[in-house]
């Protein structure tokens, strides 16, 4: 029969899939090459020479450090808020059925389902109506709002896989609600929360659209980059920062993948 002709993919499909993956990855790898180029003024290819001097130049730029510090602080606080709100929401939605449950799932997803510019300008117009001046906290307010969904998604998936009978067993053995949470639930959902937190951190660290509307004069790393893209001052420094940004966001993502990859081996999932 025709279907017996082997289970390997047709050559055309293999090539198309490989080209697609290359298309996704080559541009990012390119950033790494440009971080070492000796050409200062333009984007000339191939690089006329390679040097590591731009790392030293970047290291000595105070504006880069200020932007980095602001980004890390915003991402850390937003992630912390998102972890609390997202976990509470996931716990409520996954354990019980109640009126309005679907509405709440929608409410959590909406801030990233609608284009970022809508979230951004909505927050900005609310700030202006309420006379709230721009500050560190206005950025956090926006970031935490769309980070909730990442934690929520990870936590809800894990809650659904964790067996309810373990909680009942814990209660039957005399543990109170807090002990059950501390010794039974928390160890089970910990890696999912860590993964969600990592992704929320990466999301916040990278966010530019909502931030442009809520930051005022402050510069996070993406805002700094955007500024450099529109009005370039020293291109090689931008190249180096871009490479660092890739590394800072990729490592948490790889780690998050590693944490959630063995999802089937969660205790109680084999019920």
């Amino acid at each position, binding site marked *: *029969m*025709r*279907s017996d002709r082997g289970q390997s*993919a*047709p050559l055309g*499909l293999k090539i*198309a*899939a490989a080209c*697609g993956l290359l*298309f996704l*990855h080559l*541009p*990012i790898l*390119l*950033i790494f090459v440009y971080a070492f180029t000796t050409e200062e003024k333009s*984007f000339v*290819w191939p690089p006329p020479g390679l040097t590591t001097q731009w790392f030293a130049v970047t290291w000595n730029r105070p504006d880069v450090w200020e932007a980095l510090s602001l980004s890390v602080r915003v991402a850390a606080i937003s992630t912390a808020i998102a972890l609390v709100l*997202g976990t*509470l*929401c996931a716990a*409520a939605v996954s354990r*019980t*059925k*109640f*009126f309005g449950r679907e509405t*709440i799932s929608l*409410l*959590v997803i909406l*801030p990233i389902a*609608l*284009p*970022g*510019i*809508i979230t951004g*300008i*909505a*927050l*900005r*117009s*609310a700030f*202006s*109506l309420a006379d709230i001046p721009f500050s560190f906290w206005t950025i956090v307010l926006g970031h935490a709002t769309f980070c*909730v969904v990442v934690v929520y998604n990870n936590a809800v998936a894990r809650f659904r896989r964790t067996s309810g009978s373990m909680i009942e067993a814990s*209660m039957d053995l005399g543990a*109170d*609600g*807090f002990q059950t949470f501390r010794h039974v639930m928390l160890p089970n959902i910990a890696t999912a929360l860590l993964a969600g937190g990592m*992704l929320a951190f990466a*999301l916040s660290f*990278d966010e*530019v*659209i909502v931030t442009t509307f809520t930051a005022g004069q402050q510069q996070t790393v*993406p805002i700094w980059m955007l500024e450099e*893209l529109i009005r370039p001052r020293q291109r090689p420094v931008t190249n180096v920062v*871009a490479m660092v*940004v*890739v590394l800072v966001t*990729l490592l948490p*993502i790889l780690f998050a*993948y590693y944490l959630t990859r063995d999802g089937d081996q969660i205790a109680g999932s084999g019920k």
Partner: protein
Amino acid sequence: MSVDVTMPRATAPAILPGSGGMRGTLSDLFWRRPQLLLLLMLLPPVLWLGIVYIGSLFALLAQSFFSIDEYSGLINRQFTLKTYGDLLQAANLDIILRTVTMAALVTLASAIVAFPIAYYAARYARGRWKALFYLGVMLPLWSSYLVKIYAWKLILAKEGILTWLFAKLHLLWILDAWLSLPVVGGNSLSVSFTGTFIVFVYVWLPFMILPVQAALERVPGNLVEASSDLGASPGQTFRNVLFPLALPGIVAGSIFTFSLTLGDYIIPQIIGTSRLFIGQAVYSQQGTAGNIPLAAAFTVVPIIIMGFYLWGAKRMGAFDAL
């Protein structure tokens, strides 16, 4: 609120004596009254999202019914539909039409590029390769949006890689011919709609691959084999079996590619011409022009378009493929 828990609610005296102390009392209280626990769990996230997010959306909507005084530049806080009338001016309609066309083209191209990757990952990749494919889509999806745009600036710039590549292949005349075309061309790829289009497709592509892959994974392999055993050519199998079954996934992916293109203003600002997209119009109206009502009215456009889009997608069963 009606609560459905597995244990019967204990209205009769508990069998066990109550645990002592504040913690024990609370714990017992939550066990007897699960609604109270549920309420306490839901209160913080619902308050946060309700006040910060939904509140802001209403503030935005309210602003779109204000108008701007053309002489003083101050915002007149009185209900009017004048701002929506401004939206219908030829220049503004032009912006909306341009954005929707771009979003549609980007969606179509993403679906075409995504399909082979999704199909290979769903049907042929196993074990280590499957993980590699998954990471191969997830890493670009999560890596920095601005860095990706920046990388493309390097590629598309006049002195960048693409020009170099075309020159090496002695095909520069093709590039020049394309750039001399009226709407899609320009001085270089990085200041043309072609460039904008490529970057949009690149940046949103992973959002299309994942749902299409999810949809294809649900297609049983023997369905494809049966089709080919019954004499269908690969093309016929694709048209009559695979494509209809993958369609909900494509529609689900198109929700992202379409919506994200409608709202984006960074990509067309960095790589593109001076002709505006909706996002750029919103940004410049609220920033330099100081016309927040018109900016607000502009944002209502993608919300309404996406409302209809989601309604249509739901009817096609795309939400089950998300």
